[in-house]
């Protein structure tokens, strides 16, 4: 059974790294071009690092590893990130 959470659950950890609200950003999958909010990607938080996977094709879009004072972020699975400023509800 798929035990994944979604990008909402990863937002706390990613909030440390990004100056924008990650959950409302829209990522285009570099593998299949599916575009959707990061909030709706499948999140695997139990791994030795964090992985966000495309909800359409399953490819790893984002990988994050943290060690104390260092973090490594691989975004090769994202072709482009569309960032929305936080205004009130649309």
């Amino acid at each position, binding site marked *: 059974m798929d035990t994944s959470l979604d990008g909402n659950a990863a937002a706390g950890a990613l909030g440390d790294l990004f100056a924008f609200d990650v959950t409302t950003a829209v990522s285009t999958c570099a593998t299949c071009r599916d575009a959707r909010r990061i909030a709706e990607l499948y999140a695997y938080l139990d791994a*030795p690092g964090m992985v966000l996977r495309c909800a359409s094709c399953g490819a790893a879009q984002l990988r994050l*590893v943290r060690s104390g004072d260092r973090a490594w972020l691989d975004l090769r699975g994202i072709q482009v990130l569309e960032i929305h400023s936080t205004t009130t509800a649309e």
Partner: protein
Amino acid sequence: MAVVSRGFQGRRRQPGAGLVPPGQYLEDDFPVLSAGPTPHVALDDWDLTVVDESGASLARWDWGEFRALPAEDVTVDIHCVTKWSKLGTRWQGVSVDTILGEIDTAAEFVVAFSDGGYTTNLPLADVLDGQAWVAYRFEGEDLESEHGGPARLLVPHLYFWKSAKWVRGLRLVEEDEPGFWESVGYHNYGDPWREQRYWGD
């Protein structure tokens, strides 16, 4: 039954067997850490291949052929980079020496690849000479899918992310190719005794 000599561990002993590496703690459970959904492959569809750099197949076994290979029972300690260690875990599997035995290669590195896209890289020398297995039974039972079944790589002398779950093959390469975690911060080699967890360690 022969007399067991206390403390005798034999020739192919895991380095530091019975001891806990620095920064690790002992764990009774067997935590499940996954970078993606658990793959489910029917045994009829499963195979294990050894391929060269270009992807050409050098050897292949389907499940029946693989299970017919000579297997070993091994008891090893395993160390996860997330700091838990389990000592004395029992596995049954085929030695990678058996899998690679007939193959001639100039390659110095191997990339293990799995269902679901996971990869991990190792020096070829680290999966030979009784250091690695493709394991399919754990503690006397068939390996559960959440722990990598039907078969996983087992390389206990390195951090356990190198023991790729759901392994489907080994690719022999002349130049090292960092795998799934090695390319995003995890140490390229991963020796628990030197605490090689991350880049630069």
